[in-house]
């Protein structure tokens, strides 16, 4: 049945997060941006609310919520601050990867540490992207080879979110002709942390380079994806991508609402500028973009919960594009003030670009979506590690 109505617990979750976002995220976002770090107290508070792990399975200590509920929560977090929305949830990305690609023993071994009482202090990471030099775009330059009763991994990964602090990294590598993924723990002497990246937006999110040098892991460290690795990885990307798309909706809504307020205060030629049609119509377009994008994300999320991926790529691409458009209008409607850091809109215009580079970029998604429309199987290949900058 076509319905846009929230369940009671979804409304409750939305209202709780909205309050947190208004009280704890938005007022301090510039401080944390400058510090390029999230204080422990905030991590602890968010962890106690179960927000970062809300859609991990209940059996593993997660919230067991549907993806669409996660989308509602992440939209609200991102209205507070998109950077914090990423930074507070990214440590659990590795747990999502292990849930999607690992077997039951692997899930039991590695996931509960992120959902437990001290889960707030723990970081996990997904190491996927590589700087595209040499090799082929459809293969990882990072390699794994079977060696005795395990594997040896060699190569360098770039833009690994939480890479610097991660106690556990899910690393994608080339195993002969196959793509594969392995869990590498921090104490592994073959894992080396490189420099932290300076980024255009989302400064509060830590992203670093990781290198693997003769990094030896046991045979039980390989995440096999239940025998259909590529399809399982596609489902993982769809989940993470839609949560990220929900953040774009939140970011766009923040920019729209800020501009809506500002333009009703700001006067020019004797009246509030919001009452000039050039401004009023822009506000209307922003509002339409925010709403339409939210429904696109929700629809795809409901489908992914049912195991269907066909609208996920479109929804994610749509969110990246629409959010940028709205964020740009947000700066524009504030005029000179929009460019100044006293106001939040300039941050959102930087953040939206950074968010759009978390997960496969729109161009790759669009080709995947078009392929499906033209009768090619969905999720038949992994995105190139070259066009896969960040991962959360």
């Amino acid at each position, binding site marked *: 049945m*076509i*319905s846009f109505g929230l369940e009671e617990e979804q409304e409750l979750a939305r209202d709780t997060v909205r309050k947190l976002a208004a009280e704890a995220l938005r007022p301090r976002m510039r401080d944390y941006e400058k510090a390029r770090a999230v204080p422990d107290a905030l991590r602890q508070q968010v962890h106690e609310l179960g927000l970062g792990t809300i859609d991990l399975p209940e059996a593993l200590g997660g919230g067991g919520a549907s993806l669409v509920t996660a989308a509602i929560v992440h939209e609200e977090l991102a209205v507070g601050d998109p950077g914090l929305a990423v930074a507070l949830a990214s440590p659990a990305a590795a747990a999502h990867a292990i849930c999607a690609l690992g077997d039951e023993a692997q899930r039991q071994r590695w996931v509960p540490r992120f959902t437990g009482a001290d889960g707030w202090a723990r970081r996990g990471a997904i190491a996927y992207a590589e700087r595209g030099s040499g090799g082929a775009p459809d293969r990882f330059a990072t390699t794994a080879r079977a060696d005795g009763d395990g594997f040896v991994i060699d190569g360098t990964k770039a833009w690994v979110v939480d890479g610097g602090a991660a106690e556990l990294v899910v690393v994608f590598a080339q195993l002969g002709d196959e793509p594969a993924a392995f869990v590498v723990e921090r104490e592994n002497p073959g894992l080396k942390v490189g420099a932290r990246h300076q980024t255009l937006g989302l400064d509060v999110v830590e992203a670093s380079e990781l290198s693997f040098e003769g990094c030896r892991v046991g045979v039980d460290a390989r995440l096999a994806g239940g025998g259909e690795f590529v399809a399982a990885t596609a489902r993982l990307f769809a989940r993470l991508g839609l949560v990220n798309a929900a953040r774009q909706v939140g970011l766009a809504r923040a920019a729209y609402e800020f501009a809506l*307020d500002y333009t009703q205060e700001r006067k020019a030629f004797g009246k509030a500028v919001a009452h000039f049609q050039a401004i*009023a119509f822009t506000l*209307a377009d922003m*509002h339409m973009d925010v709403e339409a994008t939210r429904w696109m994300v929700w629809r795809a999320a409901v489908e992914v919960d049912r195991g269907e991926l066909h609208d996920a790529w479109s929804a994610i691409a749509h969110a990246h594009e629409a959010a940028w458009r709205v964020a740009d209008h947000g700066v524009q409607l504030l005029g000179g003030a929009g460019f100044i850091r006293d106001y939040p809109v300039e941050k959102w215009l930087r953040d939206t670009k950074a968010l759009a580079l978390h997960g496969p970029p729109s161009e790759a998604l669009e*080709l995947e979506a078009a392929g499906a429309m033209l009768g090619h199987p969905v999720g038949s290949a992994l995105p190139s590690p070259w066009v896969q900058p960040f991962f959360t």
Partner: protein
Amino acid sequence: MIDFELTKTQQQIREMAHQFAKYAVRPISLEADRTHRIPDEFMQRLADMRGLMTQGEVPKEYGGEGAGAGELKDKKGKTQKNRTALVGAEEMAWGDISVIMSLPGPGLGGPPVEFTGTPEQKERFFSVFKQPGLHWGAYGLTEPGAGSDVAGIRTTCRKEGKHWVLNGRKCYITNGARADWVVVFATVDPALGRAGHRTFVVEKGTPGFSVGKIEDKMGIRASETAELVLDECRVPEENLLGGEASYEGRSKEGFMAAMKTFDSSRPMVAVLGLGIARAAWEAARDFVKQNYLLARPIPRYAQIAETLARGKRALDAGRLLCWRAAWMADEGLPNAKEASMAKAYAARAAMTVCRDAVQLLGAEGLEENRLVEKWYRDIKVFDIFEGTGQVQRIVISKRILKEPPSF
């Protein structure tokens, strides 16, 4: 619950509408466009299947049979009427928009009669559709000098004994010439603004009521667009919708009747546009498949692939806005803003997709025997009728400026 699956009944209605569109409507689409009329045999077939394929709904209690869409209720006893109507309408428009707009039924005239008519009036005007033969209702709001600016209408009405005397011109009235009756908006005194508005049902054959010219248009050429002339037109007082008492002390009644129609008609019109654009998109996709993508990887044609992908998601986003407005209507929530958003967004998306479809077909896209050139002409009016994109943005912006921030 957040859900986007159609119910079983909706799936059946969609399937039935699609079959009708594909096998009955699409084959006459080109001819209807060229001759500016619906072939007689088609109209005859409609008469045979009367009640199944109508435009606008006759309420059940007044003899409506429709597809039973109005009867669908969810677990909480709420109707699914608006949502179901959109699902069927999109498929029909996919067949041919002019043919669909020419289907018999109360059309846009239905809602004002339903929402503001007295029980006797509803009985009288809806019973027309129970009579043998084909019958139409129409909606006469627009004038040479006023359309979306409803407050600006200049057609006058004055009371004389048991009659109202109407004077003025209505233009761009869909099915205006063939309609059994037309809902006409008039004013007792333009200086009174909205308070002066009165809504009448003017029946065919009323003295002083005549059809002016039939418009020759860029698109939707087989749809009848008529000018109506009211020259000392004497309308019986029983035809004043709601009765005289309903206008006293309720200064906005007439205006609200006009506006209420838009709350359900705008998402409907929007979804019709999406149906046309989806047809164009599918034609472009098939053309691309046959002509570009033989044995070569899609990334070689990234620009074409991206155009298709973008078009699809623009239509999807537009459809979701329509569904949302319809869901709100079914839930009994005020939806004027959402109805306008659906219309504004979907119209623009549909225009873009039709333009791209012509482009993707290249020179073949311009050919007369290809429907895409027709769809390109048909779609433009969707950015105009039921309120232009600009008017929708006036409605939206006025409302958002009053909304409290969520944050």
